[in-house]
């Protein structure tokens, strides 16, 4: 390279030499080691999260066309990841929240009042209390855009609010015990787990459906991509109902008794159930038995939560422990101790863990991968009212708490994702946009057969059924042969010495003892006595009849 440059310089073409140098440099080094500066190297680190999957090595491939195509594709993947990182760096409109204490202040000492005093007016309005003491502890749910809030009191009080504008959309009293409430694909429909059945209501409070096949439901969950409403009941039966077509997809008997803890893993749409024997089981509609079963606690589970990326799972049990597990590797990471039993556990979009026990809530930051000594924030409810249900509001730094005395919302700086994607969830949706989004969601609706533990396996090549069958046959044949040889191992030959011991006869006997597979199988059958037609000898028959009747026996 240096000699070429000298030649070019000699020819007086310095510009050309520089260009050649740059060209060579770009060719020789990988993008990661190229002429990026420090700022851009940060962008490269961010770009890593946009690369899905491992790089395919092209070294072993003989086919030149395929090799070229794969190389181009890999280059495009890297480029698109870098572009996405640049978009993240420069084009996102909002910034996340944070809480930085001054001096000797600690974050867990800070109260909600002090935080509300410091933030702007519109944010301070987001922290409020709804006093609803009469109608029981409240179960809550937010829509996926975070705009609408659904309250369900134990004594049958159901209400939808546009909580940012403090506007009540609808309020009904169903006069029955309501254990759980859930929004369906948007704010137009919600489901309530009432005393006997599951009911689906409209935005105006009109009862649309009564799902009579879901008996005594305890918990509800909704899978938005599959349009599946999942319920778990007192008998421990898990039911999947398709809310777009209306048919029941499947019912699974868990056979592990009453189960009151259910959560969906948002990464792969697998249902996690927490049982009273301390196990967490994972279910999909395709299998009758759990996909996975993990023993987590010494005693019944009280709460369960998954993080948004499907990496970690947090469980809480009556043994007072809050444990963090790695879901992919199925390993426990660490455990925290809570003096009172944790009633509810929740993980925010940004990975903040909220643990509600009794009338207090603790929020832990970066507590999933590493063990934190102290929580990030603490909050205690007024009048010691017991927490029933907590839920983070998506795309806002707000945690909603449903408790005995009503509903409260607190500010948790840094918990929400600041930048939303219009095509995923839009807090400022107009009616037209909502309709279009519904249609697009229905067009892209996934089938329940696609729910698998590893969603990356969709689209991969499976070895053909014929190949598998052939392999199984070969393995079975070998096993049979081995078994046959083992069972037909020759008895040590006796050396007969009464003159009938010709060596050729001995050799022939030895050969006969190398029993074929078929003979071994038949021998086995004979020994077991199954499927074998017994040959009745005429003599045996004759002996059965008395001698006087011997003339009547058939020959």
């Amino acid at each position, binding site marked *: 390279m240096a000699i070429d440059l000298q030649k070019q310089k000699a020819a007086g073409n310095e510009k050309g030499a520089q260009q050649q140098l740059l060209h060579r440099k770009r060719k020789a080094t990988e993008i990661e080691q190229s002429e990026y500066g420090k700022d851009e190297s940060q962008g490269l680190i961010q770009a890593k999260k946009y690369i899905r999957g491992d790089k395919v090595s092209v070294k072993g491939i003989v086919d030149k066309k395929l090799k070229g195509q794969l190389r181009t594709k890999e280059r495009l993947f890297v480029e698109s990841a870098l572009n996405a990182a640049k978009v993240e760096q420069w084009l996102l409109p*909002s910034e996340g929240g944070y809480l930085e204490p001054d001096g000797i202040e600690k974050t867990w000492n800070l109260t909600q009042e002090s935080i509300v005093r410091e933030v702007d007016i519109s944010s301070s309005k987001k922290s409020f209390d709804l006093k609803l003491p009469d109608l029981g502890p409240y179960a809550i749910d937010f829509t996926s855009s975070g705009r609408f809030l659904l309250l369900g009191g134990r004594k049958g009080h159901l209400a939808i609010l546009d909580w940012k504008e403090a506007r009540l959309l609808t309020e009904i009293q169903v006069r029955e015990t309501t254990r759980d409430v859930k929004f369906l694909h948007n704010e137009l429909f919600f489901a309530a787990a009432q005393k006997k059945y599951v009911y689906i209501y409209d935005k105006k409070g009109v009862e649309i459906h009564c799902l009579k096949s879901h008996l005594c439901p305890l918990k509800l969950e909704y899978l938005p991509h599959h349009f599946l409403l999942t319920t778990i009941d007192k008998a421990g039966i898990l039911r999947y109902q398709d809310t777009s077509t209306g048919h029941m997809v499947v019912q699974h008997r868990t056979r592990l008794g009453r189960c009151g803890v259910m959560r969906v893993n948002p990464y*792969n749409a697998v249902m996690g159930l927490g049982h009273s024997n301390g196990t967490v089981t994972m279910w999909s509609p395709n299998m009758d038995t759990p996909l996975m079963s993990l023993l987590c606690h010494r005693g019944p589970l009280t709460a369960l939560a998954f993080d948004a990326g499907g990496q970690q799972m947090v469980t809480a049990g009556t043994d007072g422990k809050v444990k963090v597990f790695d879901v992919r590797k199925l390993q426990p990471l660490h455990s925290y101790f809570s003096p009172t039993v944790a009633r509810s556990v929740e993980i925010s979009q940004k990975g903040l863990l909220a643990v509600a026990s009794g009338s207090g809530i603790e929020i832990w930051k970066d507590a999933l991968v590493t063990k934190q000594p102290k929580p990030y924030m603490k909050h205690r409810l007024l009048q010691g009212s017991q927490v029933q249900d907590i839920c983070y509001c998506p795309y806002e730094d707000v945690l909603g708490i449903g408790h005995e005395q009503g509903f409260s919302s607190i500010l948790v700086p840094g918990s*929400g*994702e600041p930048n939303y*994607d*219009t095509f995923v969830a839009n807090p400022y949706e107009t009616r037209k946009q909502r309709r279009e989004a519904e249609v697009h969601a229905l067009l892209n609706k996934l089938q329940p057969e696609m729910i698998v533990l590893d969603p990356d396996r969709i689209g991969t090549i499976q070895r053909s059924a014929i190949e598998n069958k052939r392999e199984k046959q070969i393995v079975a044949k070998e096993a049979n042969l081995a078994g046959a040889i083992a069972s037909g191992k020759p008895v040590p030959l006796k050396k007969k010495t009464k003159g009938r011991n010709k060596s050729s006869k001995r050799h022939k006997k030895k050969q006969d003892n190398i029993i074929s597979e078929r003979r071994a199988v038949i021998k086995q059958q004979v020994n077991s006595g199954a499927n074998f037609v017994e040959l009745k000898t005429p003599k045996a028959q004759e002996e059965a009849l008395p001698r006087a009747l011997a003339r009547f026996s058939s020959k």
Partner: protein
Amino acid sequence: MKVKVISRSEDDFTRERRQDLQKVFRNLDPSLHPQEKAHEYVRALNAVKLEKVFAKPFLGALSGHTDSVSSMAKSPRRLNCIISGSMDGEIRLWDIAYRRTICHYSGHKGPVRGVAVSSGGDRLVSCGDDCTVRLWHIPTSTGGEPSSVGNDVAEPVATYQGKNAFRGVDHRWSSNIFATVGAQVDIWDHNRSEPISSFSWGTDTVISVRFNPAEPDVLATTASDRSICLYDLRMSTPLRKVVMQTRTNSVAWNPREALNFTAANEDCNCYSYDMRKLGFATCIHKDHVSAVMDIDYSPTGREFVTGSYDRTVRIFTYNGGHSREVYHAKRMQRVFCVKFSGDATYVLSGSDDTNIRLWKAQAAEQLGVLLPREKKKHAYLKAVKERFKHLPEIKRIDRHRHLPKPIYKADKLRQTLIEAERKKEHRKRAHSAPGSVPLIPARRKRIVTELE
């Protein structure tokens, strides 16, 4: 303490006036888009199904000839016209958009065997069984209006008499030279009444001729002695010849790859060759069930269309062993000539039932001006289909084509015959002395010999 909470002002995230577009914000973080692969799979499946719903390739027919269409020519300067010659001696200039004849050229006393347009787009050359070569004038297009409806009957500019019947004609891509074939290969100039030079190799009839668009001096001819012969105008003798087991009906040069051509053969296959290495075919394109009559490349050089004696028109990719698309119609009989339009959007087929049919090259394509959003969506769906096309559900829908029963049955029969032959040869090889039955690759099998 320093505290900040997410606070969005509604003004920044909603539109100001009703006539503005709605604001769209994207966040490409993968954690906000779970199960993307599954969604893409569902989109691919829906796209492939919709493609079948929208696959309406037949656009119309140009009818007017009174005998079967024997040859077609497209002008290198105009996209909206096609010239066809039929077996009753009539040549017509068509306006494709209005499906009308602009001009009749009558004069030939027997079947017209070949038509070609000069590189300037103003002269038409035709040859026929009446041993004449005629030159005609093509009227220039008049802006955006439809050309005046043809009751014009034009007179030939020139008529040149030859000794034997002519079987085909093709025009050189840069100058006023054209070649006719029949008893031998003749090279003519527009202004000379005698051929300026002649080539011949062997005594058999030469059936078709094609000039190479990228190498203007090279031409390929096919003869009834089952050979394909290559000539160069700059040399006085033919270049080389490859003899196959069956006759080649037509040849087409790849406009993107100067030295590659594809031959449409009588044994239902098309063979792609590299001009420099005629010892083996670079690709064999199989799918027809009867003799392939004509072949033409798309101007992109990535596809070609073939018309066959089995009443179908097939579109192949340039390096694909099987066809991408098959077109048939109940009333379309033996297809004798096919042409790919100059903008690679349409395919024209001239057949035995005196009609020229106009088809779309991409059966499900939306024609006309597309909005940028539509274009993006089409590009996305194409990419997503490409990503998942190997999976069984999608492959089954994508591959599915309706074939008329006789062709379906004929194809099945052909497959059994080929399979039987293959098995027989395999067993022969297995039970003979190793090396006594040589393994000849399919690319070489059909070639008898290569001659210089």
